């Protein structure tokens, strides 16, 4: 590969929120952020799993207030940039205003892959505030590359410095990633990024495919900590990139140490597993938003139906990111079909 360096955007502290049901300890976050910073990660994302103001019954409330997480991490970063995620429809510019002065320098604005125009006002605002701005096109497996290009252009037109192909469902195969990243690279002047989920065990392979097709930024998280079967595991990704001659600013050993000494013990302590179990696999197989996983497992218990049946039905109904409320809807419907009453409690 050439001399170009790939920008690594860590999501351990944001996508990882999903895996922890948003119950991150401030101290864990600070320690992990420090280690990521020292290991040379370029950008570190800190937000509720569902973006700013994601604190809701629908998505789960985080243990502490958003501002506390963000300012605690901001205090310890020496080199890495701090980023926040915003999903228009959930969070607003007002929510962004509350945190932007806490040390944030990158704003990522996420929409479903066909709805880029709802992000225009947020991208413009962030740009005016001097941010590095990323457009984040979620569930990108659902539309063909040519359609994705049209949406990416809306974000670029609003001022985005980079547009991401986001495999929220972990449903893409390496060729799907290649086609989409290449289409964006061929048609946009801004940078292009890729965000993987590991539901089909392709998180690293897909990220490699993205870089081989011109991606400038890649998301990953230590131990893959993230929604569904997690993201591309950062320490593995960097090892693979190293072997492939792909340059980054990251130090492999330091990332391995952070994964081993900080993240894995935290997961053990919190009783959190990020694995490709039958339910996570079903997400990738059916093309369902990875964040639905734990909510679907809970609904499965509450209403006595199989998690996979819930997930497959959500996929059939073409539910998009943010529609966690439809998990209960589907579970209740499936329970009724089985002749079960919905009882109190």
């Amino acid at each position: 590969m050439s001399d170009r360096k790939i920008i690594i955007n860590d999501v351990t502290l944001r996508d990882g929120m999903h895996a922890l049901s948003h119950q991150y300890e401030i101290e864990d976050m600070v320690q992990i952020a420090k280690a990521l910073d020292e290991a040379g990660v370029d950008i570190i994302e800190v937000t509720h799993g569902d973006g700013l103001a994601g604190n809701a019954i629908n998505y789960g409330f985080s243990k502490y207030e958003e501002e506390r997480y963000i300012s605690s991490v901001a205090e310890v970063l020496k080199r890495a940039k701090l980023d926040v995620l915003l999903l228009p429809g959930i969070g607003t510019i007002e929510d962004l205003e509350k945190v932007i002065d806490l040390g944030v320098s990158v704003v990522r604005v996420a929409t479903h892959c066909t709805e880029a125009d709802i992000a225009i006002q947020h991208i413009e605002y962030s740009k005016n505030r001097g941010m590095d701005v990323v457009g984040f096109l979620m569930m990108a497996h659902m539309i063909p590359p040519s359609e994705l290009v049209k949406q990416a252009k809306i974000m670029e037109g609003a001022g985005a410095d980079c547009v991401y192909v986001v495999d929220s469902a972990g449903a893409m195969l390496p060729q799907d990633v290649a086609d989409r990243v290449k289409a964006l690279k061929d048609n946009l002047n801004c940078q292009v990024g890729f965000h993987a989920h590991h539901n089909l065990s392709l998180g690293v392979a897909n990220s490699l495919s993205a870089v081989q097709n011109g991606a400038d930024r890649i998301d990953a998280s230590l131990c893959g900590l993230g929604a569904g079967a997690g993201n591309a595991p950062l320490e593995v990704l960097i090892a693979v990139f190293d072997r492939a001659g792909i340059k980054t600013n990251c130090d492999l050993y330091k990332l391995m140490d952070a994964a081993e000494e900080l993240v894995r013990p935290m997961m053990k302590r919190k009783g959190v597993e990020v694995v490709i179990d039958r339910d996570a696999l079903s997400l990738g197989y059916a093309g369902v938003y990875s964040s639905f996983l734990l909510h679907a497992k809970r609904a499965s218990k509450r209403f006595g139906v199989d998690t996979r049946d819930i997930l497959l039905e959500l996929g059939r109904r073409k539910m998009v990111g943010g529609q966690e409320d439809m998990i209960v809807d589907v579970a209740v419907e499936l329970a009724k079909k089985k002749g079960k009453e919905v009882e109190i409690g």
Partner: protein
Amino acid sequence: MSAEKNGKVKCVIVGSGNIGTDLMIKIFRYSKNLELVMMVGIDPNSDGLARAKRLGIETTYEGIDGFLKRKDLVDQVDIIFEATSAKAHLQNAPIYRELGKVAIDLTPAAIGPYVVPPVNLGAHLDKLNVNLITCGGQATIPMVYAVSRVVPVHYAEIVSSVASKSAGPGTRQNIDEFTQTTAKGLVAIGGARKGKAIIILNPAEPPIIMRNTVYTITDECDPDEVTQSIYSMVDEVKKYVPGYNLKSEPIFDPLDKYPIRIPGYGEFKKGYKVTILLEIEGAGHYLPKYAGNLDIMTSAALRVGELFAEKILSEKTLAK
């Protein structure tokens, strides 16, 4: 001023997008007291203006200026329905006020007090500007109110999912205003102590029917009593939006078993989390039936408009 010999109050619609066009059809077909005299748009090629012309209604594509130029119409009109965007209404509202016209605002600009027909339909007839919150607000606030009239509601949260096709450029540019205004409405009219609103656009084909999920955190209460209150409110809304339906009976999760902790607000360990799943099928007037979000908004606007018109008519009768 006006009130013509046909005994109807004259009105205009500003905004010829999805909402404005749907409202036009409703007024044209069903209104007892309203006569639409002009449809105001900004795009000469808009479908809404073309339809208005076919119905024999005057149109302008020069926006509000196109209407103001027509002094004859300005003099006759008593009610202006604003179906543009929050930003546009902030600019237009002072003009309407200056003219002394009643503005019924279908954008989330929220200059005037909120009106949700089954909760406070007749409350602000003395005002010159009333606001209809948002489609999500019209859909969910009656449910929050149905719970809060029985038991204190510490927190209400709603998720509105609408078909991408039913969300025009106004809605898309207003997405922040949507969530903020809806959340305020959950508190001000719904009676919750704190509110949160979420909107999701879903592009699935065939388009999804508008869905709304209402979550409330309540004090301890009798679930049957809350359920009855919800059912009777559904019947109230059905009177003007027949496609307003519960997808299942309300779901009660006891908070002693599933406590909820909201950072910066409080921990709730007693009472219930009540989940209400709604589906709203539209009347299919302008967009097809999936667009319940149009129907609930324009039906509310028509109801409010009729009431204002009745009041204006009775005042005029008295004046004679």
